[in-house]
């Protein structure tokens, strides 16, 4: 049996006989009291999200998940296809489980895929991802004076982000995957 110190994003927990993948967890110390871990997790059966708060050191049934470096290939219906570059084996992951991270995926992107009994249950994106700008409206004289310091630009995987007005089409930029925002020129 594991304890709360083993809880990480992407681990799979058995709770009341159902399996859940941890999507978010947070250590909290209520009112200067002892430490707890608030865990948001998604059901592997139906994608439903539940929230449970465990006391630190409480026993938790964590099932074993294998974390593997893989490359994103393409979308197949509502599934996402990844390839293990060492074995060339491909896996398909449910759109439900990819969730919001889907918008950051692009052809050839390296991610860490968590596998439970060979089934992919979560992905971990790099902190920053490099994209090419494919559409960027030109800056208009007077923009900064009127307070428009950013504009919406389109990236090579279709992602839309706000970027400083000096960014031009064809440039390479970095996007912060925690916030989904422009980070810097690459």
């Amino acid at each position: 049996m594991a304890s709360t110190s083993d809880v990480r994003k992407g681990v799979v927990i058995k709770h009341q006989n159902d399996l859940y993948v941890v999507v978010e967890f947070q250590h909290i110390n209520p009112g200067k009291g002892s430490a707890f871990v608030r865990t948001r997790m998604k059901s592997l059966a139906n994608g439903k999200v539940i929230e449970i708060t465990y006391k630190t050191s409480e026993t938790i049934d964590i099932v074993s998940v294998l974390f593997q470096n893989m490359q994103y290939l393409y979308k197949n219906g509502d599934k996402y296809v990844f390839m293990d570059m060492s074995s060339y084996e491909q896996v398909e992951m449910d759109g439900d489980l990819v969730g919001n991270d889907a918008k950051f995926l692009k052809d050839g992107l390296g991610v860490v895929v968590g596998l439970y009994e060979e089934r992919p249950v979560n992905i971990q994106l790099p902190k920053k991802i490099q994209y090419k700008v494919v559409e960027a409206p030109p800056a208009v004289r007077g923009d900064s004076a009127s307070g428009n310091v950013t504009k919406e630009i389109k990236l090579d995987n279709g992602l839309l982000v706000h970027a400083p007005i000096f960014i031009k089409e064809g440039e390479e930029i970095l996007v912060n995957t925690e916030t989904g925002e422009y980070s810097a020129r690459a």
Partner: protein
Amino acid sequence: MSTFNELKNNPRLKKVYEERLQILHLIRNFFWSQDFVEAETPIALRLPGQEPYLNPIPVDFIDPYQVSHKFYLRTSPEYSLKKLLAAGWQRVFEISKCFRNVESFGGTHNPEFTMIEWYRAPGTYWDFMDDAENLFKFIGKKLNVEKLKYRVFQIDYLNDWDRISVKDLWKKYLQVNLDDYLSVEQMKKLVQENGFAVDMKDSYEDLFYKLFLNKIETSLGIDRPIFIYDYPAQMCSLSKLCENDNRYAQRAELYIGGLELANGFGELTDPKVQKFNLEKDRSLREQLGKEIWPVDEDLITALDSGISSAGGIALGVDRMVVLFTGARDINEVIFQSVADQIN
């Protein structure tokens, strides 16, 4: 994330930081306008607080003779400010950098964080509940913020705030009378009945929070801010007992959008009872295998010299900034948080 690079390139984060600096300025304006004085007390203390579950960070001061003196970074300026009350100040506040070890690097915690703590003597816990409400409204009106934001919640804070006793809260969410669950044994039963695991070693406070965090906290203050007050007495080492029911004590916490913002007390000013409570906390620290140090006798002497009734509260400024700016994480409101410096 709030590094030089992010502040330069991300206008949203730049605005968050600008608002943080304005909020600090407005906090000072508010308290000075209410006849408080701004105190400045030591960050490094030889004898920090005895809270059983907090972990003060040790630092060594070495004198010119190479003799080392062990100090700790404060987890709150509480004792120092109470000593100022004993010295005769009636309304004091301090915007203090505090430190707590073994807490998350991000989310709702950073090991180094900012607190606004204030005391009134004479004063009661009702006074600081009013102060907190007025403080938020004062800042919000100056910044033109109509709703506080946290996660998916938009919180109306410009109208009257809610106040509910912990006992009424348990009636509302768990349909039980808390009077019947004031011992460890009774509370264990209630926790199990609600489907949560109980450990032999769980203290009353652990059991209380297992239910509170799972069944109550996330719904607190999601429409408007709420103060919950009068906690079971065994959870309050620094509070005075309630006058009408000594099984409960005058402790109050503020919740906004399910987030804990502040913790305050109708201050315990009886030196003998205070010493007894702190010695008890100290032995609990010892049992838990935590670092220990003597009770600060200077605090007990200060109380003994006489403080009239007092009320005091500590409010997390970083979390307050999160609410006013709608930032997603405490690290977005702190320039160069611990996580930013490590990664």
